[in-house]
């Protein structure tokens, strides 16, 4: 995994964790936050995978 890919995967992990918190923890329950950070997590996962896949075609 390239460092670029690793950094985007790290972003994915943080965003996904926060989306789960906003979706499931009653104190923080804000579905709008969960939706946005959740989709954001997916986007950064895709960017991380794209960076890794392209690099592996060297």
């Amino acid at each position: 995994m390239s460092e670029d890919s690793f950094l985007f995967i790290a972003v994915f992990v943080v965003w996904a964790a926060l989306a789960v918190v906003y979706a499931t923890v009653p104190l923080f329950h804000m579905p709008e936050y969960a939706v946005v950070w959740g989709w954001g997590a997916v986007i950064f996962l895709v960017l991380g995978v794209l960076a890794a896949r392209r690099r592996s075609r060297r």
Partner: protein
Amino acid sequence: MSQNGLVSGVAALPEADKRLLKLFFAAALGALGLGVLFGASTALARAGFVDLGPLAGYRAMSGHGVTIFFYWLYFAQAGLLLALAAAYGAPRAGFALRPLAASGVALMAAGLAASLYALYGAMPLLYDAPPELAREPSPAVAAFYAGYLALSAGLFCVAAAAVATTLRPLARGESWSVASFASVAWAGLLMVTAIAAFTAFGPSLMWALGLGTMPTNYSTAWHVLFHNMHYLPLMATVLLWYVLIETLTGVKSILGARFSKIVFASYLILVPPTSLYHMFLEPDLAEPVRVVGSLLSLFISVPTVLVFLVIVVSLEAHARAQGAQGLFGWMRMLPWRNPAMSAIGFAAANLALGGALSFVLIQEKLAPLLSDTFFVPGYFHFLTVGTVTLTFLAALVYALPALTGRALGQPGLLRWLPPLATLGLVLFGTAGVTAGYLGVPRRVLDVSYAGDAPAAWGTLMSIVGVGGLLMTVALGLYVLVLALNLLPLKRGAGAAYPEVRWGGEVALDARAWTGPLAIAVLLALMVVFSVGAFELMKALPLEAIGGAAHH
């Protein structure tokens, strides 16, 4: 002008891509020009210099926010993102997915047209457009939300095209440069913001079309979107500093590409955790969430401060290697006669002021007291005009001649526009923040209250008006000079902007204290502004809790 990544990359683009970028930048300058006119009208009305009446006054205020915060900042970002994505990758190959990028600019332009139609076809909704302000569904209200959604869809298209463009070097087995990596991060956040816009404005559009009920959760969805819209222009700003400083001086980070990439990634890491402070005005927000949000919000400026440090430390170390003497002697060696350097220098100073003041507003105890006062426009113009706009204009000063092949007119004048804008901003911001501390309300055109308001309020708003006029002159001249460059007028090659070439390796143990010293000054300013605000608020004979207001 230097032949490096930005300039040579933009110049090497295929003609079709250059035409597309010219469209983005023409639309950006058009939106900026309109927004400046709306802003000048608002400032003059607020100062009491002209009487626009409530309807025209609120149209001007709404038009200012819509054209500047949504269209100028995002047309400029879209064009600059595409330019960087191609210039630092494979510029001769041009944009990947060009039709998608072209669809993006078309959608964004349609959004601007719809927003302008709505401004004059409905009651002005202010730029945050809460549905309860419109009260009744109507085609014009629907056009307002449809305009924002078209803008968002266009931004998503442009960001996707930019990501596809940056992938080309990877396909050849190369790794991303710092600029390419940061461009992908920027594009990703633009895509997320487009999704956030759909969660905020989609249900409102359905309601305005008579196809749904009025959304009950608009403010929460708006706050998520608004948080991203804070972050994006600042992230773009520091990336442009990074790129432009290399263009102006040849200096790259002495801390290495990996560290710079980690810093840009930290922007993304910190976007969601720092978002809770926007909810401080919601009265039903649980107290533990307020405390957590207050603590997390302290991290909001960390990535920006880190990029600033990387740039300043790298510049100072290289300048000392060139023989600079004294604590600040190295700064005199920078090419200040270059209009882009002048803009970046004033942008950094304005960011320090705006950033320090912003920490007053994101504190849980002060937010309810200040959020609906003139403190808010007083501080955020340091960021929107003084930092982001000056930086975007600095980037256009380099990008436009590379696109058109024509030198900019009036380079001597351009050098003096950043200090002129900053002078106006200091008047506007100082009087505005003071007015906010003294209770002058935000979004109220006439603060005289039939003579019952304190006399100081009127004086301060007059200073705000004068400051607004100076900013109008500076930004208006910028728009004129840059827009003329887009017209196919004959112009010679022009004189080169002054630059320095400090590239090469320097020792990591070189002395470079200015950056850390600047951060210490920033922290001191934050303490002074916050303590001052607390003391002032404690002296007021009132108590406030959240009132579900809108930033």
